[in-house]
Structure formats: C-alpha cells, structure tokens
C-alpha cells in the first residue's frame, strides 16, 4: 500500500480534515489545562525559596517553550512551502504566526510579573529576555510582510524567506542562559532529570501539553479561514458558503 503524502496538501481536503480535528484539540487543551492548573495551583507544594510566586512557572515556561517551538514549526512550514511550492504549507505558516506571537508576548508578560517579586524588577536587558523580544518582533515582521503584497503568494514566499532567516535567533534564545551568565535562571528540567518537585514537573508538562493542543487547534481554525479566503472563487467554497461574495477586496 502506498501512502499519498500529498493527499492532505490539497486545501479543499485539508479544510474538512482541519474542521473535523480542531474541536478535539480544543477539548484536549481544556482537559490538560484543567488538570495542569489543578496540580499547579492546589497539589504542588510551595517553593522553599520563592514562596507562592513561583507558580507563574506553570504559564511562563510552557508559553516560552511554545514561543520558540512554534517559530521552528512555522519556519519548517515556510521551508516546505518554498521547496515544494505547496500552497497549504504557506497557509499553515501564516496560521501559526499569530499564536506564536501571542505565546511570546505571554512569556514576556508573565516573566515581568515573575521578575518583580523575585529579582526586584519587571525587566532586565539580559540576553534571554532581549532575544525573546527580538523573537516577538520577528513574528510581527513575518505577519506584516506576509500581508504587505497585493498578491498573497508573493507575500507567502517573502515571509517564508524571512522566517527561515530568523531561525538563527532560536539557538541564541535557547542557549543564552548558558552562554551568558545573566539574571535569568537556567532550566530546571532536562532529559537527564529534574531539579524540581515531581508534582511541579507534572503540572508544567500538563500545561505545556495544553498549550500545544491549543496551538494546533487555533492554527487549524485559522488555516480554515485562510483557505476559504484564498479559494473563495473556487466551486467547492461557493458550494459550501453560498453567502461569500465573489470578489472581496484584499
């Protein structure tokens, strides 16, 4: 049996596929977030050094992970769209960008609220925070460049190239706490083991799972909107949504 890898690269097929899958991802996200928040806020013990304020970790760390990971996925889709010239990959890259920017912002914002009680300041210009801020602007640049052209395919390609150039920033963020000795603490979790209480770890992993599922869900919903907008002149979209006018500006 041969698998047709390009079966789902057709926007009309993927539109229905995404529509069927998205609610499941949202349901999983809600479940994982409920469990994760319960463990994080009720079960996990108070931290010996930081007290209750450390509980920001259950939002901050998953958001920071997602901000980097989503950029990587977005750049992978961008590379796919440039090399295979597939429309859907470019649409997926566009669909991921706003969620990635949101998580980057959340990571910076919760980090500021974590920093005030523990470091005594909302913001320091250290390597990790600065490079995370650069990541936020890379997301904004991607979104702005993608929508700056009359021809959406042109915007797809230009933004894809920008996303690939910006990948250089990811290792800088990731290794910044090791390369520069700064205020931002190192990671407490690694594949070799963890330096934190096990319920804290499970709470964090569940929240990461929730963020993951939420990101997939929103990307699928958003890519459906992009597909309908792009394919509005095709027969299948007109059959599906007769109310869409034939010519929408933009």
């Amino acid at each position, binding site marked *: 049996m041969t698998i047709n890898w390009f079966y789902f690269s057709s926007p009309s097929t993927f539109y229905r596929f995404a529509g069927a899958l998205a609610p499941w991802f949202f349901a999983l996200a809600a479940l994982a977030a409920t469990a994760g928040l319960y463990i994080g806020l009720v079960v996990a013990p108070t931290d010996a050094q930081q007290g209750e304020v450390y509980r920001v970790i259950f939002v901050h760390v998953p958001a920071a992970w997602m901000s980097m990971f989503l950029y990587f996925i977005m750049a992978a889709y961008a590379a796919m769209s*440039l090399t295979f010239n597939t429309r859907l990959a470019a649409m997926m890259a566009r669909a991921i960008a706003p969620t990635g920017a949101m998580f980057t912002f959340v990571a910076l914002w919760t980090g500021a609220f974590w920093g005030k009680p523990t470091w005594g300041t909302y913001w320091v210009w250290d390597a990790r925070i*600065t490079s995370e801020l*650069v990541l936020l602007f890379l997301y904004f640049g991607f979104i*702005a460049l993608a929508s700056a052209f*009359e021809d959406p395919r*042109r915007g797809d390609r*230009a933004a894809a*190239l*920008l996303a690939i150039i910006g990948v250089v920033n990811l290792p800088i963020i990731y290794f910044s706490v090791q390369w520069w000795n700064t205020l931002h603490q190192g990671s407490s979790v690694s594949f070799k083991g963890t330096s934190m209480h096990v319920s804290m770890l499970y709470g964090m992993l569940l929240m990461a799972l929730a963020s993951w599922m939420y990101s997939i869900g929103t990307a699928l919903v958003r890519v459906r909107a992009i597909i309908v907008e792009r394919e509005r002149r095709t027969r299948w979209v007109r059959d599906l949504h007769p109310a869409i006018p034939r010519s929408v500006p933009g």
Partner: protein
Amino acid sequence: MNETVDGTFAAGFRWAFARDVRLAWRHPGETLLVIAFFILVASLFPLGVGADPGLLQRIGPGVIWVCALLAAFLSLPGIFAADYADGTLEQMALSPHPMAGWASGKIAAHWIASGLPLTILSPLIALQYGLAPDSLAVLACALALGTPLLSLLGAACGALTLGARGGGVLLALLALPLFVPVLVFGAGAAEAQATGLSPSPHLSLLGAGLIVGAMALPAAVCAAVRIALD
C-alpha cells in the same frame, strides 16, 4: 548573434561593484545625507541627556553605534529599490553572471557608500563624547567589522520588501530586530575596553558573524530578489 558569455561570480561582482560605486560617486548627495544624519543624531544626544562628560563617556559607544545603525538603515532602500522600480534589476537577473556575484557587488558598494564613511567619521564623533583614544580605536574597529554585516542583513530585508506596501516602516520592522546582535557586540566591544576588559571576544564574535553573514546572506538576498522578480 549566438555569442554566449560565460558568467563568473568575480566578473559579476566587479561589474556591479564598479557600477554602484560610480553611481554613488556621481550622486554624492545620498552618502552626504547619511553622514549628515549620523552627525546630527549623534549631536542630539548630548543636548537631550545633558552634557555631563562622565555620562557622555559612558553612553558614547552605544549612542554612536545606534546612530550608525540608523544611518545605515536609512540608506538600505537604495541597494535594490531604485533598480527594481525602473526594471534594471530584471535586466541584471538576465545577465550571464550568477546573481550571488552581482548582488554581493551591490552590497559591497553599499557598504563603501554608507558603512565606510560612518566608520571613518566615528572617531570624530567619539571625540565629541570624550572617549579615550584606545576605546576610540576599538569603536572604529568594531564599526569596520559590524557595518558590512549591517549592509548584508539590510540588503536581504530590502530585497524582501521590494514592491511591498508601507515600505519604509515595514523595512524597519524587519531589519532592526536582525541588527540587534550586531549592536550588542559592537557597542559591547568599546564598552569592554572602557571598563578595562579585553574587547577581543566581542570583536572576534563580530568577525565571525561577518564571515558567516558574507557566506550565507548573499544566497538569501538572491532568493529574495528572485521572489520579487517572479
């Protein structure tokens, strides 16, 4: 006329470099504007933050770097935009020389017309800020290594925004975040010298960045120009 010319990287580089340097030489206005902007903005800071010599000495390297970065940024649209607007870029893409060759030539010429004058002038500005002679030399070295990297990064962003709506602001949003590492290490070099540390790690990182950039970014510029000409 079936004569075919074998294009080479070096010939393309030489041709584009000579052309753009000649153009810059015959229209010196643009380069002079960049220099005037650089000096003007650098002179605004002492008026804004107060003329305390100790403070100026401390912020001097950073301010000069930011001014140089903004001045280099202002001249970015000049690399490709004019040639794109009048169709020259399309003709160049048809030339037998590989695109990486003449694109690199254009970037080098851009540096000669923007980054090099800024580097040469920077000691003068640094004197206004009262920097010590040794940090002055380090600052000029860092600018000499960093401004070509700015031209390379900026050329990629400039090529990406060809034909885009909201050109200037969009270019700022793309280019300035990518300039951040250059600024950090560039200003860090002079600052390390001023605080008695060795500036060589910063300069080495800038040099390494320049080598990697000079190898990788022309390919990105070519890809961006191809997307723009599609």
